């Protein structure tokens, strides 16, 4: 069995290295050892599902050793991780360890995205509870919940329309007291589909010739709004998400294949473009929205 140690902290900063590790794993059944996991954000949780799905394609259903930390356990439970993990991992039924501590800042539990009906469900859920968190934690105006829903709708539709494979979405608010001195909302949307290069290949690869790669495909979609559809009204989803994330001084990154592209604000030191990672299926999107800065 291939043992894949899950890092003690699995979040937007460490998930790419984790994917690289999964990409390099040998054929055969995998064991994801998450016993020492101490911190996981939506990127980590959704990333774990994506990694498990990718590993499962190479052999039998991978095994997941659950975290020993009761806090992490409670958090995974609150985010509906265990429901989503059924069918992705073989794991022992988690032992109920009482209610998770503290008030919940879950904006959106892990939700599978397969069809348009799932996008409606995401928007319904977010509308019903995100408004209070966005205003109390981030100081956003009451109307921001609509823009937030629009972001989630557009980004989840990318999975339905382009990935040709399932994906997941999750969102949670955190106090980044040390890192930023503010609350943030972290949104993760990932799929295990054909990725940006695969989606754009038939219509656009020829004009790029030898330069056609994950990087150029990401640049085409992310920077120039290019899509596989000829309709001039298409391809604006990502452009408008970028615009709204910029208005909120947030960060957005997309990994697809070997590359990652991002629009990063001053407070984030993530490079805007990274290439040379291990080939990994699908697209993995992370959005971080910070609280309004104090004047």
């Amino acid at each position, binding site marked *: 069995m291939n043992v894949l140690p899950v890092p003690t902290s699995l979040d937007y900063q460490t998930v790419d290295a984790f994917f690289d590790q999964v990409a390099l794993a040998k054929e055969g059944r995998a064991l994801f050892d998450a016993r020492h996991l101490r911190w996981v954000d939506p990127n980590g949780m959704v990333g774990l599902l994506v990694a498990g799905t990718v590993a499962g394609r190479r052999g039998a259903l991978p095994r997941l050793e659950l975290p020993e930390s009761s806090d992490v356990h409670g958090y995974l439970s609150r985010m509906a991780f265990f429901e989503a993990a059924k069918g992705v991992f073989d794991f022992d039924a988690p032992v109920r360890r009482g209610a998770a501590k503290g008030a919940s800042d879950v904006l959106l539990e892990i939700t599978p995205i397969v069809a*348009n009906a799932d*996008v*409606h469900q995401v*928007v*319904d859920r977010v*509308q019903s509870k995100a408004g209070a968190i966005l205003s109390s934690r981030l100081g956003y105006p009451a*109307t921001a919940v*609509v*823009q937030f*829903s*629009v972001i989630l*709708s*557009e980004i989840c*539709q990318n999975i*339905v*329309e382009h990935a040709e494979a399932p994906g997941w979405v999750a969102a949670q608010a955190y106090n980044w007291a040390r890192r930023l001195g503010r609350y943030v909302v972290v949104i993760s949307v990932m799929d295990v589909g054909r990725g940006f290069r695969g989606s754009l290949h038939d219509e656009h690869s020829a004009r790029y010739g030898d330069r056609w790669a994950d990087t150029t495909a990401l640049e085409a979609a992310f920077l120039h709004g290019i899509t596989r559809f000829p309709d*001039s*009204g*298409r391809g*604006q*989803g990502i452009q*408008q998400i970028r615009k709204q994330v910029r208005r909120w001084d947030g960060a957005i990154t997309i990994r697809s294949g070997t590359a990652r592209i991002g629009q990063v604000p001053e407070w984030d030191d993530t490079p805007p473009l990274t290439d040379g990672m291990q080939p990994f299926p699908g697209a993995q999107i992370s959005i971080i929205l910070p609280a309004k800065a104090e004047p």
Partner: protein
Amino acid sequence: MIEPGPDPHLSPVWIDVGQVLQRTVTSLYSHLVTRPTGRAVRLAIETQLQSAGERSLSLIDLSEVVVIDFSCADEVVAKLLESAHASPRHEAYFVFGGVHEPHRDQIETVLERRGLAAVAETDQHVFALLGSVSEAEERMWRALEQRGAVSEDEIGAVLPDGNAVQLLIERRLALRSPRSGSLHALSRLVRRAT
């Protein structure tokens, strides 16, 4: 409810998009999101307008819609206008109602992307021209909006930029009465009864 306007004797059609959404797609969906949903709603509106005669004026009322995303705005607003303008048999005019702040960005964006413009009620009895419009068109539209209607004799004096006025007519952002030649602001023709 809609009060028919004066001169061009059009009976405006009021279409509540919230109701169309629930009737057409499913009563479980309360938001205008995803492209297939938008497409279904647009087709339902187009079907409703097929019986409207050679000329129609519709108030597409979005006030019961909480969330409209870019994909739906493209289908329900931009593509509705585009397909109506392309029809050789039917002269359709539209006013989009209930375009409050949370909807505005999505609608403006999709209109600009396709080089379109539309008259929208952005607040109660407040109308704006959204989308791709020149300064001259905007100026002439505002002048017409202030007056509500301008008789044929007055057009040159009140609306001196003839090219811009012609574009407003061609783009169906203002309505010229075929009988009297007077020019009408669409907002005055689609007043809701209070």
